[in-house]
């Protein structure tokens, strides 16, 4: 909200304070001032109200005239030379006297007024045009553009303001002013007004609030206390929970025109568009007091009442912005029987808006329920300054004051020939608010804030905000003003207010006492990241919101955003790898050849059977990587390209750095179903890593779901990118990817423990097995698993040393494994080893159809 420093000074004594001091204090009092801007001209008095008594032609110039202008009743008029064409005898005009500072209307610079001679004729001041007083042109009567500002034109000026010799500056809209841009507070509807912020400023500086200097009753007296001729007399409220309180008031004898410059300028200063004198006053009062108001053209209302009721689903309204809007039962409407004239608290209707023809109006000031205004505003996609305030809550007890203030200003500034008729207040509902009572314990202040605040100080701080404070000792009774009832209900709310008003700086920093036991952090992630960066992969952070057509999404398990920002952010990802592939493409497109990336992040699967207390979504932490390009950079030789073997080796290194017993794991080829579910994977160059045990049936899955990670023993995969997928993403080079379920992997880590270094001799034997794929396709993993199973406890290591195939097409191949045997303390004999080797050969022949050359 934009707050005018000058406007604020009408409510609180700011003498001796600068706008910047006030801004700083507000900021440190929870109402952050984001910016202070300066507006308006740099004017200085004396600039006074004068009357043109005589006009004579200048003896030496055609276009310049000589006036006699009176600036004090009963005194001789002054000789003032004037070049404007629009002056006439009897006009009341602003006169800048010697010593005054006004605006040079040609270039906006400061113009200092001196007594001087103009073409031989003495001039004792200057009659001022609006630009010379800093009034923007759009505020003026267009006819006056080049002329002197005629203060008594249009009957808009109250006679009392136009006392000759009185200071023009207070009447002027555009004294230099400071605009404080205050961030609105969602819980402080009461502070969305000049008066509300004035209370805060008064409390923060310990300054008194000023009493209002206007009275509607007095004004009515001076207007003759006439009653309206209109039959309009009632407000009807359907539900007091939707609308606890409403006031209406008929006003007649109204003339629509431009606003009084003081009102227009204030609105413009805070960035509000001016419309006409009546609408501007409703906005003015809303900013001043925080109460939104609406004025209806009384001649466009058919009945003698307005009703506040829910709209029906078939009703429509054309709002002031010219748009036709469909209404429904969730919205609160202001109805002239079956004609909707406004959406309560949001916007009025076009048909009954104030126009140039308006001569009578009905002024509405009400209190609508925040929730229903909020709902209406959301449903219509329409938010206004009024809805902003209603949503934050309007104090019913303050409505009448605002209604009177608006009526006062309308009667004063929108009266046709000074003959405005102010009707009586029409009310419905109740504006009575039970005062809130909160008990404050001194001990709690100390407990929560760590400092003591004396009862006297509490009183000093809270009283300017409208609180009444009673009590001296531990227990202090505080009664809460109606406009703070919503946000101050509890002791802690008062403690907050005290803390803020007393200043956060007054609280001495200290450190919390007891420290509790320090939990062991899990180092899995750190170790994994160290391993991967050590191998040359850089860490990526990818979006977990992915496009609706993302590859490899298991639709059945998809978490979908219902109100996505765009189609690119519609689903929650189920794999990290597609994102890495995109990042690879992004980098390759920018000329980068070697792309080595990894990511640690979450994937999301809908739970088909929601477990108790679950959010309905399984969130797993995955670790994935992508490598593409050369193995290393060197000038001396052609560096070999990254291949499947390197990628798998990286994963194996990673497992080793996490101290995972590889014998608990198993590698196998990816199945067709699995590679279909992850279309970025090469069907024949992808290995799946699982736990070395049978899978349990998964209750969260039906047979058709194929996502690899749905199996409860799946740990991940490593593979080459499918050429079709790589082509579709425009990749320029082969890429290899891996993805691991780090949560599951973590469970397989074993504690580090030194097993000693055996000094007994090692016996190394090679075993070469021949296979024929036409008979049975056997993988190394199968051979290795069988060797370990049959070798007994003395096998220390089994290593694949060669795979031989006569040609790439050959179905026959052989594998040589080098086995290292060692007993922890004894020396093994050749006979023992031969026996073990025989057992291994036998089972390889039996189970895997291996043959052996002798």
């Amino acid at each position: 909200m934009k707050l005018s420093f000058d406007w604020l000074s009408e409510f609180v004594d700011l003498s001796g304070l600068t706008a910047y001091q006030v801004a700083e204090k507000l900021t440190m009092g929870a109402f952050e001032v984001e910016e202070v801007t300066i507006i308006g001209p740099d004017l200085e008095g004396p600039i006074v109200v004068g009357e043109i008594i005589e006009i004579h032609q200048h003896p030496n110039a055609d276009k310049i005239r000589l006036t006699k202008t009176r600036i004090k009743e009963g005194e001789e008029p002054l000789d003032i030379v004037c070049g404007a064409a629009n002056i006439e005898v009897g006009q009341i005009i602003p006169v800048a006297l010697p010593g005054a500072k006004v605006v040079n209307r040609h270039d906006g610079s400061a113009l200092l007024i001196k007594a001087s001679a103009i073409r031989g004729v003495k001039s004792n001041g200057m009659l001022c045009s609006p630009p010379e007083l800093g009034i923007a042109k759009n505020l003026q009567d267009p006819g006056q553009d080049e002329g002197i500002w005629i203060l008594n034109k249009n009957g808009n000026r109250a006679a009392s303001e136009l006392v000759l010799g009185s200071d023009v500056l207070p009447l002027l809209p555009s004294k230099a002013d400071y605009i404080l841009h205050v961030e609105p507070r969602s819980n402080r509807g009461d502070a969305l007004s000049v008066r509300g912020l004035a209370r805060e400023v008064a409390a923060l500086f310990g300054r008194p609030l000023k009493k209002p200097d206007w009275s509607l009753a007095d004004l009515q007296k001076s207007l003759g206390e006439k009653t309206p001729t209109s039959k309009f007399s009632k407000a009807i409220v359907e539900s007091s929970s939707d609308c606890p309180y409403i006031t209406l008031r008929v006003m007649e004898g109204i003339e629509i025109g431009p606003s009084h410059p003081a009102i227009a300028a204030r609105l413009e200063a805070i960035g509000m568009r001016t419309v006409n004198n009546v609408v501007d006053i409703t906005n003015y009062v809303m900013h001043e007091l925080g109460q939104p108001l609406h004025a209806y053209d009384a001649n466009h209302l058919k009945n003698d009442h307005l009703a506040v009721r829910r709209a029906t689903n078939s009703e429509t309204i054309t709002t002031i912005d010219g748009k036709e809007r469909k209404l429904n039962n969730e919205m609160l409407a202001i109805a002239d029987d079956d004609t909707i004239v406004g959406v309560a608290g949001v916007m009025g209707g076009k048909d009954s808006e104030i126009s140039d023809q308006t001569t009578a109006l009905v002024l509405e000031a009400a209190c609508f329920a925040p929730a229903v205004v909020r709902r209406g505003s959301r449903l219509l996609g329409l938010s206004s300054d009024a809805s902003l305030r209603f949503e934050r809550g309007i104090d019913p007890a303050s409505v009448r004051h605002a209604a009177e203030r608006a009526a006062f200003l309308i009667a004063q500034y929108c009266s046709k020939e000074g003959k405005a008729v102010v009707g009586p207040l029409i009310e419905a509902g109740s504006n009575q608010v039970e005062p809130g009572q909160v008990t404050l314990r001194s001990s709690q202040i100390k407990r929560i804030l760590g400092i003591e605040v004396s009862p006297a100080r509490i009183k000093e701080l809270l009283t300017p905000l409208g609180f009444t404070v009673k009590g001296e000792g531990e227990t202090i009774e505080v009664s809460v003003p109606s406009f703070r009832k919503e946000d101050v209900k509890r002791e802690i709310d008062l403690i907050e207010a005290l803390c803020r008003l007393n200043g956060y700086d007054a609280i001495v920093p200290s450190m919390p006492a007891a420290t509790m036991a320090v939990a062991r952090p899990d180092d899995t992630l750190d170790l994994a990241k160290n391993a991967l960066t050590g191998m040359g992969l850089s860490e990526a952070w990818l979006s977990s919101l992915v496009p609706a057509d993302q590859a490899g999404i298991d639709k059945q398990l998809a978490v979908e955003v219902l109100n996505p920002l765009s189609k690119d952010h519609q689903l929650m990802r189920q794999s990290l790898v597609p994102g890495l592939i995109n990042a690879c493409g992004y980098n390759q497109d920018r000329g980068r050849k070697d792309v080595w990336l990894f990511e640690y992040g979450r994937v999301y699967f809908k739970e088909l059977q929601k477990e108790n207390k679950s959010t309905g979504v399984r969130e797993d932490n995955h670790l994935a990587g992508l490598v593409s390009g050369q193995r290393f950079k060197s000038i001396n030789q052609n560096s070999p390209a990254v291949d499947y073997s390197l990628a798998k080796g990286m994963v194996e290194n990673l497992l080793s750095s996490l101290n995972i017993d590889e014998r608990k794991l198993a590698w196998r080829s990816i199945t067709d179903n699995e590679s279909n579910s992850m279309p970025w994977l090469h069907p024949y160059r992808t290995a799946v890593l699982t736990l070395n045990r049978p899978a349990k049936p998964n209750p969260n899955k039906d047979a058709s779901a194929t996502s690899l990670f749905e199996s409860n023993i799946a740990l991940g995969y490593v593979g080459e990118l499918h050429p079709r997928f790589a082509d579709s993403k425009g990749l320029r080079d082969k890429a290899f990817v891996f993805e691991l379920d780090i949560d599951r992997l973590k469970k397989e880590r074993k504690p580090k423990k030194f097993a000693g270094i055996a000094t007994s001799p090692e016996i190394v034997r090679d075993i070469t097995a021949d296979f024929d794929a036409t008979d049975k396709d056997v993988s190394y993993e199968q051979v290795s698993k069988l060797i370990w199973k049959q070798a007994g406890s003395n096998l220390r290591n089994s290593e694949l040393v060669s795979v031989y195939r006569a040609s790439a097409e050959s179905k026959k191949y052989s594998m040589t494994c080098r086995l290292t045997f060692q007993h922890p303390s004894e020396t093994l004999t050749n006979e023992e080893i031969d026996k073990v080797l025989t057992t291994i050969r036998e089972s390889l022949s039996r189970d895997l159809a291996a043959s052996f050359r002798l």
Partner: protein
Amino acid sequence: MEAQEFEAKITALVASALSAIDNTADLDSLENLRVQYLGREGELTIMLRGLSTLDKAIRPKAGQLGNQAKLQIEQAHDGKRSHLYDSTLNQRLATEIIDVTTPGTRCLSGHIHPLSQISNEIISIFYSMGFTVADGPEVETDYYNFDALNTPASHPARDEQDTFYTNIGPSSLLRSQTSTVQIRVMENTKPPLRIIAPGRVYRNEEVNARKYPLFHQVEGLLIDKDVNFGQLKGTLSAFIQALFKKPVKIRFRPDFFPFTEPSAELDSECPFCSGKGCKTCGGRGWLELLGCGMVDPNVLKGVGIDPEEWSGFAFGMGLERLAMLKYDINDIRNFYTNDMRFLEQF
């Protein structure tokens, strides 16, 4: 054999050996000479073996001569050998000249993402103050994201955080703040508590240089007996000094959050203009670093903790914001584009 005769013979042998050694040009011939004279069947070895057949009277003298001869030949051999080794090696070294200033063979070097780095730094600072890391789901329910955080459906703040809703159910949403973890921890763990919860959050905001529909926060919570606002100030001041590794001028500015009361925004003096006001700080001279406050009694009651017995403070900060400040990054999208030219600068 007479002594003179033996002496003459041995002198001749030594002379021939020394001359041969001296004339040798390579290590292999030198080794052959060593075998020829000093080997098991070498000439000197055989001659010395013959000493036993000599007259007892001349044996000592002959033995002495023999040993002297052996020493002489050995010395000559060793000297020649070391000379030949050095000269051969020098020849080889001369063929091994390379330009030692050419770049080395390099594997790629891996870099940790700046958001990870700053997150780790924050965690380790709080870890040293006795906080432990907690975690929670990103796909949350409105209960944890709003209601339990004292933000009922009617609260205006609920609209301000443009929330993403999901197909999981009417109450399912993507969490808009990591404060959800506070509630989950307090539901399951009895105080005293000190936790820190880093994580990803989502808000439905148009993408621009400052905003992205997902970003990251670190949430902290401390619950104990008699925790007060002064301790909040002390703890977070210590944290900021540790994070920036130098004295930073900070201030606690009042603010409102639904789940803390009193609430504050911790500002640091803008490092780019030293508080004078610039574009980065929007002319304010201060930069918001984190939000914090005393946990609202309603939040404690909601999870079954008696606010009369326990009190505490909570705080939350945006990782991107801190990283952008710390590393002078001007566009938030850099964090998620994963351009290697960006990643490799950290």
